[in-house]
């Protein structure tokens, strides 16, 4: 290999251009943004200062926005050699104390599963945005909701994650902030299940006054007055989650992916330790499903025919519900899942006391209908999936299917 003189690097930027940029999050007020951009701006607002990613359609725009914005806000961006290293690097960044993120689609999401699994066991907060596209395999490059189960079950082993499904540009911003808040509060990887439609849509984004937006940061042991000698890295604080120091803070934490005792010991194995360790990280999320999950209901009073939806499909579904109601079917109601995981059995049962039919349009062959059916097994006579692949359901598609059943 010949030794070539490396030329000096100078940023391609004039001083005027450098002054004109936004040095922080978006200012309060109305903006008109691409969904992908709104997602990145939400992350910046929440304090994300590390982005690592790999190009993949339809998520590359989020990465490109990160490349542009990270240095502007004092963060760092890197395009890694693949999705595996992108996701693994989030673990290092998070342990170094920084909110970290990547965005990808199906094929990349599959590659990230080992890192998600490690994140679950080590209780490392980070964000993965999956701009879903159809699969399996290379599938296609349009819209989909086919990875909703993979988000929950794709990582090997037990434990649990939190996932949200945005349906608008505003929610690409709001839900990203919410995702980080969940990650920091519950010390868990969080997945934002977007889709190609919402990522590539342009819509108004209203940023509230900054002091009105809640941003959560992980609790550190030093804030609680716990000294390094007394710190047990995997002992929950007040029964919730262990405090999380950053590397360099002096706590000398040895992060592990093996089953472990609260003090971090991995060599003294026992079935009891194993059960305690894994069930604690599982129950950390699942026992708080009703508290974590966000579900909204419309027209549930007197509802006989319930339409359930999540993500961008909610917009088609709500349009369909409104049209049916406008035409006299006032027994049609709507339930929207804003978070998909953990699945809140209790909350949903408290909202849906008894209906005849439940219609569930999904941009997949019927996935979330399974936990829904389990949850409301004794509360509805029929569960009808309305699948559609590759694009948003048109309201007519949903209306026609409903009419087929209810007339």
């Amino acid at each position, binding site marked *: 290999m010949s030794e070539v003189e490396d030329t000096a690097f100078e940023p391609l930027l004039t001083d005027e251009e450098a002054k004109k940029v936004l040095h922080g999050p978006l200012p309060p007020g*109305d*903006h*008109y943004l691409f969904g992908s951009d709104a997602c990145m701006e939400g992350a910046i607002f929440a304090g994300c200062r590390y982005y690592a990613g790999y190009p993949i359609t*339809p998520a590359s725009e989020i990465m490109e926005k990160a490349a542009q914005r990270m240095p502007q806000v004092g963060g760092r961006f890197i395009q890694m050699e693949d999705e595996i290293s992108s996701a693994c690097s989030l673990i290092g960044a998070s342990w170094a104390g920084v909110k970290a993120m990547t965005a990808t689609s199906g094929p990349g999401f599959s590659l990230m599963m080992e890192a998600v699994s490690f994140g679950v066991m080590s209780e490392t907060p980070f964000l993965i945005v999956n701009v879903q596209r159809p699969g399996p395999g290379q599938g296609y*490059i*349009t819209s989909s909701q086919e990875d909703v189960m993979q988000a929950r079950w794709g990582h090997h082993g037990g434990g649990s994650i939190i996932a949200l499904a945005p349906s*608008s540009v505003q929610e690409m911003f709001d839900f990203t902030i919410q995702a980080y808040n969940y990650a920091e509060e519950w010390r868990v990887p969080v997945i934002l299940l977007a889709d*190609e*439609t919402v990522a*590539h*849509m*342009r*819509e*108004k984004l209203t940023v509230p006054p900054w002091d009105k937006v809640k941003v959560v940061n992980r609790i550190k042991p030093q804030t609680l007055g716990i000294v390094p000698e007394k710190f047990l890295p995997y002992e929950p604080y007040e029964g919730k989650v262990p405090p999380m120091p950053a590397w360099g803070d002096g706590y000398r934490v040895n992060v592990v992916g093996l089953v472990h005792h609260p003090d971090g010991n991995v060599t003294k194995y026992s079935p009891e330790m194993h059960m305690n360790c894994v069930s604690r990280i599982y129950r950390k999320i699942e026992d708080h499903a009703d508290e974590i999950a966000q579900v909204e209901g419309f027209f549930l009073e007197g509802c006989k025919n319930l339409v359930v939806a999540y993500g*961008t499909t909610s*917009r*088609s579904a*709500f*349009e369909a519900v*409104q049209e049916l109601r406008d035409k006299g079917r006032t027994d049609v109601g709507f339930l929207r899942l804003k978070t998909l995981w953990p699945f809140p059995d209790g909350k949903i049962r408290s909202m849906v006391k008894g209906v005849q039919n439940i219609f569930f349009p999904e941009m997949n062959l019927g996935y979330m209908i399974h936990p829904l059916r389990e949850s409301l097994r004794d509360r509805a006579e029929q569960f009808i999936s309305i699948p559609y692949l*590759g*694009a*948003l359901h*048109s*309201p*007519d598609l949903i209306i026609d299917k409903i009419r087929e059943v209810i007339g």
Partner: protein
Amino acid sequence: MKRYEIRIAGFGGQGVVTVGKIVGAAAALYDKKNAVQTQSYGPESRGGACKSEVVLSDGEIHYPKVRTADVLVALSQPALDIYLKDLKAGGLLIIDPLTVIKEVPRTDVKVVKVPTAEIAMKVGNRRFQNMVALGSLASLTGVISPEAFKKAIQEAVPPKTLKQNLEAFEKGMDYVRS
């Protein structure tokens, strides 16, 4: 306004997506309406029917795409062939007679022929034809103020072509007024 649906379609490179972006921005930022803009990546876009859609409303917009369009701007024959069926009865159809040469097979829509490519050439480059189409759209529909459009154009195009883009827009407006 409950829902006003606009679809712009043509060959890739005719600036169809830019027009959609500008309509959305003009409505959302400068005219205080709600606007959702989407574009297609699907197979039709490869064959000359690349489309951009905008749904406008004074209220909340649920379904973000066109159900039946109030306006269709077709800058290519394939665009017309594929999307004419989604134009509502009584809707507005704007076509460029240079590329849309076949007889329009519907009698229940209002057809306006605007030689966008020809007018754009007068401004300096065929590339400005999308702005001509936008001007005609603005004038014929009246759903968004010209001032809002002009502000949105300013944000969307590079400074060195701003003058020509605005000129093309004005010419498009003028053409349909005459």
